[in-house]
């Protein structure tokens, strides 16, 4: 274990028994997260993201396995873990009968902030998370997004060393999401906070996370930077539309030689394939095709998305996996390349 490792787990496993059926919520989670890292857990509903967070935050004990968070063992020293972390759960954190400002002040007191410090911190978070107008309302009277902003504020009050966020931005409008991220990033910049979050927003993981862990059916199936995952697992989606259908066989053989992949023909006159750093490949490819007198009408290279990564890993898009009953059995075969995904799939799972 690196001396700067803040979260370290070994074989963390959690099973639930529901109506005599055993659910393997999380299987063999073994990860190391370094101080200051911003890690995103990505995966469809029921993948085991929340269960993983709930184990790491001492809310539920693992069925087997061990973990240390901020130097404290989750099993033998849960109080130590709690003293160093912040947690924003998937549910609503404020008690419905309490007023917004009161909850923030109480939370400050729970974490040992003095009277003046907690007042300052509360007022600051109320202002910057845009809760001023509702500060003296009871939580019950807040809109969904306002509740979520309060949840986030509650998790940030004590500027924790390690911050766990379970789908923090779900239900927030774009402005609030931007404010949320500004807070998280400021906290990191000032305190070197380690941030561990789960999200369904692909572009959020893509943009902010230094490291993305893809989870499916209780297992981490990929763990790398978003860029590396995309380059290794998906590659750019390249589509060539030819002027002349009869030139397809020639074009296909050129593609196979230059890009070392076999192309598909999704539509007449069209060749589609995925290739790592495909954009860089495109000029060479076009020169070669020109050399063989193949006339290309249009050529596009679309950078991959994390959804393509998920598709490449599981054979399902995240949207399919999230759909009710979407276990993926009816999804396209695992070998389907990113060229068959269009951007609508991405949009569907990010809205």
């Amino acid at each position, binding site marked *: 274990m690196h001396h700067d490792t803040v979260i370290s787990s070994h074989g963390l496993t959690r099973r639930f028994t529901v109506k005599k059926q055993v659910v393997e919520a999380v299987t063999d989670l073994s990860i190391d997260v370094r101080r200051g890292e911003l890690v995103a857990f990505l995966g469809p509903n029921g993948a085991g993201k929340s269960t993983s967070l709930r184990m790491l935050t001492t*809310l539920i004990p693992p069925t087997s396995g061990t973990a240390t968070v901020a130097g404290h063992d989750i099993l033998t020293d849960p109080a130590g873990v709690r*003293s160093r972390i912040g947690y924003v759960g998937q549910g609503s954190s404020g008690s419905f009968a309490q007023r917004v400002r009161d909850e923030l002040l109480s939370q400050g007191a729970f974490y040992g902030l003095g009277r003046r410090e907690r007042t300052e911190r509360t007022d600051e978070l109320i202002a910057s998370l845009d809760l001023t107008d509702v500060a003296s309302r009871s939580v019950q009277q807040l809109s969904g997004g306002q509740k979520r902003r309060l949840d986030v504020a509650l998790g940030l009050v004590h500027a924790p060393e390690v911050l766990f966020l379970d789908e923090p931005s779900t239900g927030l409008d774009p402005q609030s999401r931007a404010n949320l991220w500004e807070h998280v990033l400021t906290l990191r910049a000032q305190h070197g906070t380690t941030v561990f979050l789960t999200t369904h927003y692909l572009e959020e993981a893509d943009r902010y996370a230094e490291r993305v862990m893809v989870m499916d059916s209780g297992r981490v199936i990929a763990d790398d930077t978003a860029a590396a995952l995309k380059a290794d697992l998906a590659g750019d989606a390249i589509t060539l539309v030819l002027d002349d259908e009869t030139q397809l066989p020639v074009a296909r053989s050129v593609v196979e030689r230059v890009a070392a992949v076999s192309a598909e023909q999704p539509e007449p006159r069209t060749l589609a394939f995925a290739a790592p750093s495909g954009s860089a490949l495109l000029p060479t490819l076009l020169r070669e095709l020109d050399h063989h007198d193949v006339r290309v009408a249009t050529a596009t290279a679309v950078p991959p998305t994390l959804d393509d990564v998920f598709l490449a890993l599981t054979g399902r898009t995240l949207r399919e996996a999230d759909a009710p009953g979407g276990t993926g059995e009816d999804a396209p075969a695992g070998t389907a390349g990113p060229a068959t995904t269009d951007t609508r799939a991405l949009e569907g799972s990010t809205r």
Partner: protein
Amino acid sequence: MTTAVRTRVVRPHLARDTWHVLVRELKPVLRDPFSLIFSLLQPLVFLGLFGPLLVAQSGGDLAGTLQWFVPGVLVMIVLFGTGATGSNLQYEMMTGSHERTLVAPLSRSSLLVGRALKEIAPIVVQGLAIVAIALPFGYRADAFGLLLGLALLAVFGVGLGALSYALALATKEHEWLFWGVQQSLIFPLLILSGVMLPLDGGPAWMRAVASVNPVRHVVEAMRAQLTGDLGATAVLWGWLAATALAVVGLAVGVRAIRRSS
């Protein structure tokens, strides 16, 4: 613009954490004290409708009947109000609010003890309100006895509240189960306490069961204390029963919250 918050390590501390939990629980009460008065509607209905019936039945005068009935109504407030308080926690377990406090560096026990102690506030406010309402109808209470009576109710309420929270923790997210168990316990306890009708005329088995009902002893002690008969053995028994309930309740509650997390 961001205040620099020192990263600190906070270790659980029962007394301090209980205080913070108590203060948090009291906030909605202080913000909205009228909710306490509104919840007095039920005991007032009992006083207003049941009182005259008792007068007619006993053949005594109104003041005399109130002397007997008001202490019981005070106990009834605790039984119904505090007995139901676990539902608040149950609600917080369904949202993420309880979970949030479980991740905080608070002593687990404080989450229960602080909540149980908070019950004292509504008990005292509501108790005083009922006595004030009964005064114009000729009810009189011994001042020191009343003080002692409220203290007894507070001890009783802390125990009952803790048990109610323990029930909420045990029934987790099954609201129907909580209410089912709660209602099927509260009513026998109430009837077998002699709050509404004297038990003297009841069958022997009823009196036998009532003699081990702590609520009955609290009611008897309240009656003695509010009339200023502080030396009565009933007072001693009442305090014993309430203290035992508080000790058992807190022990059961603390165990429940430790196990649940």
